[in-house]
């Protein structure tokens, strides 16, 4: 028993086209707000430290993910670290080819147990390696966004 009819050509398919109106306003939370304001106003990276677990959260968290204690100790971490992982992108979000490939890396920041995912520039994709030391390049005009760091580059 099989269906007696099927579509043989794409143009035979009728689809109902529409668009869902969506808008989203995302706030970064109490800790994220403090992190971004410090980044904007002073071009500094701050993290939270759990004295009990001796663990430094970057990006900062309000509560320790290990012992659930509230974290009140804020520490400054230097804007440099090592590449922990990276990928080279050749397509944008709409899957259109990029004029130049972009490198996205997870940078483990010195003095913290975490790091930031960000762009890596001023380096040839072939020369990037795990463990490569990199530093943040801050924008002159900052507005309180993770993009106040323009990118990371090799140091």
């Amino acid at each position, binding site marked *: 028993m099989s269906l007696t009819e099927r579509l043989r050509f794409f143009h035979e398919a009728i689809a109902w*086209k529409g668009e869902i109106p969506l808008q989203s306003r995302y706030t970064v939370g109490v800790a994220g707000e403090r992190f971004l304001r410090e980044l904007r106003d002073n071009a500094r990276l701050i993290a939270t430290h759990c004295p009990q677990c001796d663990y430094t959260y970057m990006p900062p968290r309000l509560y320790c993910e290990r012992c659930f204690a509230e974290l009140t100790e804020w520490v400054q971490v230097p804007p440099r670290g090592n590449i922990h992982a990276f990928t080279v992108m050749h397509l944008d979000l709409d899957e259109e080819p990029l004029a130049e490939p972009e490198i996205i890396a997870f940078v483990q920041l010195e003095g913290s147990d975490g790091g930031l995912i960000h762009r890596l520039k001023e380096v040839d994709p072939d020369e990037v390696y795990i463990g490569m030391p990199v530093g943040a390049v801050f924008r002159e005009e900052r507005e309180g966004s993770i993009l106040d760091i323009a990118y990371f580059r090799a140091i």
Partner: protein
Amino acid sequence: MTEHITEYPGTPLKERDFTEGKVLYNWWVPKADYAWDAGVAIGKFLAGLKEGKILGITCPQCGRILVPPRMVCSDCFVPTDHWVEVRHTGTVRMFSITYVTWDMQRLEKPLIPAVIELDGITPGMGFMHLLDEVDRDDVHIGLRVEAVWRPAEERTAAITDILYFRPLKEETS
């Protein structure tokens, strides 16, 4: 339980916290385009509407005429196979009177959505459409109606190629 909570823990934000720049935020308008595939049966049904035809399909086992058409009979689970054109007149089997649109705008003149069982098809089948050219007080279950079509050149193979159903002026059977 929640009615006893007067103060919620957390960091509540008010609209003016955003407008006055008290809080940092990301503004994002995702592009959520979609295309809903009508499928073989409904696709052919919609294509028929563009030509001014209402198409149904017959089940070879129970003989029911399905409108809107389905590729498989919902009673017998066998593939349906024979397309038929059905009449443009029918009977109101269910209706509602609404003074708000789907996105909750108030309406002066009510919309009257109804399930219409077309003549000649299997009783119990039917599709939803709007009634018009009728006073809301005159609408009743069993009201005889006919389709009012969009002009042929304006049709787009959509259910709205039928503009609405209106009361049948005189029976011509």
